[in-house]
């Protein structure tokens, strides 16, 4: 382990205590929060300069290798979401995985000694990287231009720990989670955000039913988005069978209701709406047991122009599945970040102190006084890729107190894509298999 990594891990260690106090007791010492993140940003900067070529090059060109000002580092060196798809797409289509690996080395701290023997699919390349010690999480927008986020063992473990802790919080603890049946409108496996949440959830709950009982692959997603003959096999297994698959999810919820097992329903908004619509068409409804809940993630746009409102979704889920409005959960996150921000009853997304958020203008300059802008953050869990990051989402970031009592930064109002940014997210991946 490198000295700079040790220093980063040591710098971020005290943040855990801060996160626990925030989550359990609604406590947050803002001065300590600020200071700890200044220290972690500096430690991350040194680590990235020492190990991530693309980061080091920019820092060198800007004369910032020895910079010790965390604000300046965040302002000048944060990457945009394009970094994780800054490869030439012809390499993917031409199966030039040596070129893809070489590209990946530029944004990863790991030297990536990857054995590419016999690799001829994107999934095969991901597996080869995994064997070399780096797992690739992927996400896609509507164009099929896939983002790859490389996590080494330490970063992957941090992500999975965070996801699991977040889910346990929703259930009210690990023991309570074990009483639930999970209805997961995702693929079973595959390094994609929603699938990772489902994977962690399956380890916590009593029974699991997956919409797709096979892993999601980047090849399938790219083929589905691009269309053409290559897409057919994937689409046959997904879109072609979707009504029957929805029926199986409905059957699973009926079984849980009969057994009086509370259900957690996980999916992108449009998927949940699809299931409710199917019940409505059949003139049917399910009265799920009292503690059942509904957990939404993956973005609100249906990717087909139809926008579903949160209010109408909660209403229809109450009508068709009997889930009470107070049992609705939602979080905001992205593949590039290991921390998700849960939504409170006041419809604000609260940002855990594990990360330091910011909003930037079109020129990527942090906005003083917060307000609405492109959302960015410093994530010290990103040990193998640049964790100073600017998303393609526009949010309104505030430190104003929230009625729910949760302290710290939160996002109010609508989260929308910044102008010119492709609609993207786990919802996009799932929309590719909606037909």
């Amino acid at each position: 382990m490198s000295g700079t990594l040790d220093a980063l891990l040591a710098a971020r260690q005290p943040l855990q205590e801060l996160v626990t106090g925030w989550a359990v007791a609604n406590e947050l010492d803002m001065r300590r929060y600020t200071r700890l993140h200044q220290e972690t940003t500096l430690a991350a900067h040194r680590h990235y300069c020492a190990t991530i070529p693309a980061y080091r090059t920019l820092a060198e060109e800007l004369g910032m290798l020895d910079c010790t000002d965390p604000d300046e580092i965040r302002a000048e060196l944060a990457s945009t979401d394009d970094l994780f798809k800054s490869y030439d797409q012809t390499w993917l289509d031409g199966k030039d995985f040596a070129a893809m690996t070489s590209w990946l080395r530029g944004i990863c701290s790991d030297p990536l000694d990857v054995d590419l023997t016999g690799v001829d699919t994107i999934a095969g390349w991901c597996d080869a990287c995994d064997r070399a010690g780096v797992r690739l999480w992927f996400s896609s927008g509507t164009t099929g231009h896939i983002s790859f986020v490389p996590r080494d063992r330490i970063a992957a473990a941090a992500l999975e720990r965070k996801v699991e802790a977040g889910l346990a919080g929703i259930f009210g603890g690990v023991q309570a989670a074990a009483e639930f049946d999970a209805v997961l409108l995702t693929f079973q496996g595959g390094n994609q955000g929603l699938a990772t949440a489902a994977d962690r959830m399956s380890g916590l709950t009593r029974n699991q039913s997956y919409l797709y009982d096979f892993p999601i692959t980047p090849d399938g997603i790219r083929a589905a988005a691009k269309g053409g003959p290559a897409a057919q096999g994937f689409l046959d297994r997904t879109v072609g069978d979707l009504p029957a698959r929805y029926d199986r999810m409905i059957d699973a919820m009926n079984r849980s209701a009969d057994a009086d097992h509370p259900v957690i329903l996980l999916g992108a908004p449009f998927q949940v709406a699809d299931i409710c619509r199917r019940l409505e068409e059949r003139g049917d409804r399910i009265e799920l047991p009292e503690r059942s809940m509904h957990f939404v993630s993956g973005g609100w746009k249906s990717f087909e122009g139809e926008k579903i409102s949160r209010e109408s979704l909660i209403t229809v889920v109450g009508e068709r599945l009997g889930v009470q409005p107070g049992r609705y959960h939602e979080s905001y996150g992205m593949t590039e970040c290991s921390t998700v921000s849960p939504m409170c009853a006041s419809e604000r997304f609260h940002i855990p102190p594990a990360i330091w958020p910011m909003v930037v203008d079109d020129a990527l300059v942090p906005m003083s006084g917060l307000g609405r802008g492109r959302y960015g953050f410093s994530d010290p869990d990103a040990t193998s890729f640049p964790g100073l990051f600017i998303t393609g989402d526009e949010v309104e970031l505030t430190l104003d107190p929230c009625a729910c009592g949760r302290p710290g930064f939160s996002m109010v109002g609508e989260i929308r894509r910044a102008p010119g940014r492709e609609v993207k997210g786990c919802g996009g991946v799932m929309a590719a298999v909606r037909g």
Partner: protein
Amino acid sequence: MPEIATMRPGDMVRSFVAEQGLLYPDGNGMVRLPILVRGELRCPEAISRERALSALGTDEYIDTGTVQIMRRPLLDPAAGSQLFVLPTISNPKELIVDPSDHFATGLGRLRANEIAEYLERVGALLGAGTVLSDAVREVSHALDDTPIAYVDAALDELTSAFAPAHTLGAIDRELSFGSVPGRSFLDDWVGLDPAPAGLTARLSGIVHGGGPLPPRAARVHAASTRQLHITAGNSPVIPIISAIRGLSVRGAVTLKMPSGALVAGAALALALRGAGPTHPLTRFSSVAYWRGGDERIEGTLLAPEAFDRIVVWGAPDAVDSVSARCGRTKTLLFNPRYGVSLIGAGALGPDRFHDTVRRAVTDALVWNQKACIASLVLYVECDAEGAHRFAEAVAAELAHWEDRFPSSLSGEANAAVRRARRGGMRHGAWYSNGDP
């Protein structure tokens, strides 16, 4: 409103602009712009900056029903913004002419040399050093990141673009058929060599007995067309050049000013009127602004039969939007595109290296890299080390230009560079020709 019809070109246009308070920003950053509707000038009503800002709210554009107001940020962000005010197009049908009027009003009988004389008068009013071109220069300097040297050079060129030799030369070249120069088709019915009898003529011979109908000489004449020009504003001369080409062929031209070159469009409106208020080309010309995509206006203008030809310049969304709605009307699309250079190894040898760099940069800097013919990607036939050396030399040459013609990178362009450098193009080796 004083009538420009009574003016003599030049001085009178100057006094009209001054009396009406047109084209130039007032002390509050308000710029009032006239439009031309079938030869008649319309000036916007006076409106205070406070009222304009109140009407705009947080928007960048509004049509109040009597005036259109547009906000454009000044290059110096600390200096705020300019507000452009133009009359509302209350009835878009006014921008369409009745084709039966062409001959009745003399447009269809205009001869090429009369067209050239008219355009020369327009050019004299728009040329460098006039009140109209000075306004274009002043506003470009305040709003655009293009070095003023480019604007000056373009305005200098305008006079020659309107020169009779240029107009007639273009007509002769581009309307020619065989060895017949183009102006002949504008001025007369031109007899062409008889074509061999066609299939139906031969069938006619069978119907009537005997041989096929004997060929007769064909005569061809270039008729006026009603033309809609939707222009782009990446250079202030684009609407003017587009208009020249339409007017040169005796077109009844309706020109949409681009939002990026409103003052140039308004200057053209004044120049057309000043060049001859009763001239047929003036009476059939309109130069106006409406917001691109405004269905109330474009639904009428793009309807079948409204125009004979449509010319569209501009950004992808504008071109796509118009081409999708213009039906079967013949349309010329000046699509967005970018140029590239392919530089062979032979041009990179020691004896030619510096000349190649200079030429490559000259090709890249066409209209400060904003012209579609500007070469934005230079491919060089060499190894990586040679490519780096070439890139260094290009950066040095660009810096040399920057020293001579300083430019201010707009906030938008600066932001685009920062985004590229920190996202999709972070892997590249970056060479800089100075601070943004």
